[in-house]
């Protein structure tokens, strides 16, 4: 089992080496990257916004109901919501959602191309298929996922404000004061750094599983599942490592 794991890790890094070789035609790669930014990034704005809105709403309500105490000022609800979203929820939850949505899409797209011999066709033409198919996806996710995280942070805070004021647990003034109180700009940098790591994990791990498929449609489904599971585990692992490195 350990040997198999090491073989997989080795194959992953060999694939990465192939991915990061010099592109044949930079203009073709540029066009492909733009396409991937729409497909993998822009198309995820909706789901990220919806989930972030409700996430912010629930965090605000839970913070409010768990800190009902006269000695706590209510603006701390806004502060708690902001920091929870900024430090953890937007980057990590967004990462996990994208591991499901984008990761499975990358693995099944590349996997289907493998089983229908489209990757063989690219190789026969002399195209570096790994670089042509995977590099634009990595660049697109690295560029767009931080934008998605910033959207998630903004929408989450708005969701908390709407839920908190609607439920009557905090006034609008207190919430706005709370989200500005003791703000540490580095937390945004921290969230973006985590997002970049997660984006790289999602794109490369999913592409690896899709690219290495052998078989047919059944294996495409299995690879898609493996891509989501392995990406999610790595995201959670790197979340711990990065938190220790960046906040200690």
């Amino acid at each position, binding site marked *: 089992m350990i040997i198999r794991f090491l073989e997989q890790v080795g194959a992953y890094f060999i694939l990465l080496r192939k991915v990061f070789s010099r592109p044949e035609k930079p203009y073709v790669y540029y066009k492909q990257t733009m396409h991937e930014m729409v497909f993998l990034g822009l198309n995820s704005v909706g789901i990220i916004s919806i989930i972030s809105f409700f996430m912010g709403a629930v965090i605000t309500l839970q913070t409010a109901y768990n800190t009902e105490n006269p000695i706590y000022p209510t603006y701390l609800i806004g502060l708690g919501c902001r920091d929870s979203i900024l430090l953890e929820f937007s980057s990590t939850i967004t990462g996990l959602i994208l591991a499901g949505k984008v990761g499975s899409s990358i693995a099944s797209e590349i996997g289907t191309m493998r089983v229908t011999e489209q990757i063989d066709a690219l190789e026969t*033409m*002399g195209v570096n298929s790994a670089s042509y198919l995977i590099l634009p996806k990595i660049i697109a996710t690295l560029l767009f996922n931080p934008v998605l995280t910033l959207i998630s942070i903004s929408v989450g805070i708005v969701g908390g404000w709407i839920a908190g004021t609607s439920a009557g647990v905090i006034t609008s003034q207190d919430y706005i004061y709370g989200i500005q109180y003791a703000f540490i700009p580095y937390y945004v940098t921290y969230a973006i750094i985590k997002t970049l790591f997660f984006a790289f994990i999602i794109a490369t791990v999913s592409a690896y599983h899709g690219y290495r498929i052998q078989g047919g449609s059944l294996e495409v489904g299995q690879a898609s599942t493996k891509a989501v599971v392995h990406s999610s585990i790595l995201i959670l692992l790197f979340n711990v490592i990065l938190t220790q490195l960046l906040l200690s």
Partner: protein
Amino acid sequence: MIRVENLNKAFNGKPVLSDISVTFEAGMTNLIIGRSGSGKTVLLKSIVGLHEIDNGEIWYDEKLFNRLEFNEKKEIRKKIGMLFQGSALFDSRTVEENVRFPLDMFTDQSLEEKTERVNFCLDRVNIKNANKLFPSEISGGMKKRVAIARAIALNPLYLFCDEPNSGLDPLTAILIDELIKEITEEYSMTTIVNTHDMNSVMKIGEKIVFLSDGVKCWEGSNKEILDSDCSALNDFVFANALAKQLRKSLK
């Protein structure tokens, strides 16, 4: 010309090709025939470099292909056109974009020049008014023809076809065979076709190599195939009832 010498290939220790030596001539339609599982596709993919061979030599004219560095192989691959069993057209691209793809990747032509070449290639394979359609919107026969158009877009020196008429009706299969033969002669290409279709064998098989269980059993032309002494080949050629009757009447 493509020359294969003493080629061996095994998967997980199980031999799939054993000591294959054969020369495929330029300007000629060379056929690899044999039953399913005889090693035809593995041989074809080994020649193209999609499978690493265990030992042996693959020569593309004067170049020993299997010993070349990645970039040198890439230069030869630009001269290769390949038609896959399932066509292998890119799903996310239109017919026009599929045929233009090799031109986008390997030439510095303007869009007008590329479009002109695309239209020429599509015209050559008798595809009309389908430029903007996606592969999912065209028939199996059309897909094969678009794949041929894509394969010839860069004027290749070598054309490989893996079961070009699988899944096609007999009339469309004949059209595809004729097209492959015409293109081969027109551009003086070295064409290798994998097939187990006897119609193709009799119609375009100028040079035929018969594989059985990964071993080359017979080599000859479509004129010689009916008189062969090779029992495995005879079993293959006269497998269906019509062929058996024909053989009886010839005798």
